[in-house]
């Protein structure tokens, strides 16, 4: 373990899809040094990509004047990726997850991001904007297995 525990880092990006590669590189750079396996690292990167793509395309409607903040918090037993936005609050835990057999039968082609997040992460928490904190925060958690 070379990365100090309780270490944190931040990224501020415009809410545009061309920034997804920057977001993935930021997450991968930190997670890959934190003792997670390659598969776990890939899954954390994927979950953050999906969360940010949803924010950019659906919450912000591809408005390039909006932005997203990411904060990575490494703890002894887990890693948290905190994703902050100022859109209308939407708790992904309230989303109806698709039944995949029905999804395939109906030939749908959107709406898989939250399902992917739930399948690869150990925890998803959502704190909507409120008094004293003007932005929404989604917290994705992955437990350390090693």
């Amino acid at each position, binding site marked *: 373990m070379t990365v100090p525990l309780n270490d944190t880092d931040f990224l501020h990006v415009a809410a545009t899809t061309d920034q997804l590669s920057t977001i993935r590189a930021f997450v991968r750079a930190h997670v890959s040094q934190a003792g997670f396996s390659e598969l776990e690292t890939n899954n954390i990167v*994927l979950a953050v990509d999906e969360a940010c793509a949803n924010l950019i395309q659906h919450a912000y409607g591809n408005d390039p004047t909006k932005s997203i903040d990411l904060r990575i918090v490494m703890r002894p037993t887990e890693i948290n990726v905190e994703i902050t936005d100022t859109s209308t609050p939407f708790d992904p835990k309230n989303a109806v997850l698709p039944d995949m057999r029905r999804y395939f039968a109906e030939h749908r082609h959107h709406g898989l991001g939250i399902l992917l997040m739930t399948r690869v992460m150990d925890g998803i928490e959502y704190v909507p904007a409120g008094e004293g904190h003007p932005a929404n925060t989604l917290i994705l958690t992955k437990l350390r297995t090693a």
Partner: protein
Amino acid sequence: MTSFTSIAEKRESGVCVISLSGYLDAHTASDLEDVIKQAIDEGCFKIVVAFAELEYISSAGLGVFMVFIEAIRQKGGDIKLAAMTERVFSVFDLLGFPILFQIFPTINEAEEAFPTEA
């Protein structure tokens, strides 16, 4: 900067092979959509998508195949997937896509899986 390329090549068998490289995400998915649409517009309904050089795929990339699969199968064709890395396959597998799409180890195996026209 996200890099993604998709190159379509029509083979003698009539199968169109679309080779992907780079990163297929919400930013680049429309590029692949354009390439598949063009292949269909040119009358190619037997499509093999080759993933050997693809580094990354998100759900936006998976969605592209869902856009076209019904129309292509109604025309007697198919989209078959080939040569995936373990990293890319794991994303397909997480959502059960191997139920709907045949995935082959190589491009040639996917190409040969199409019935030969009389």
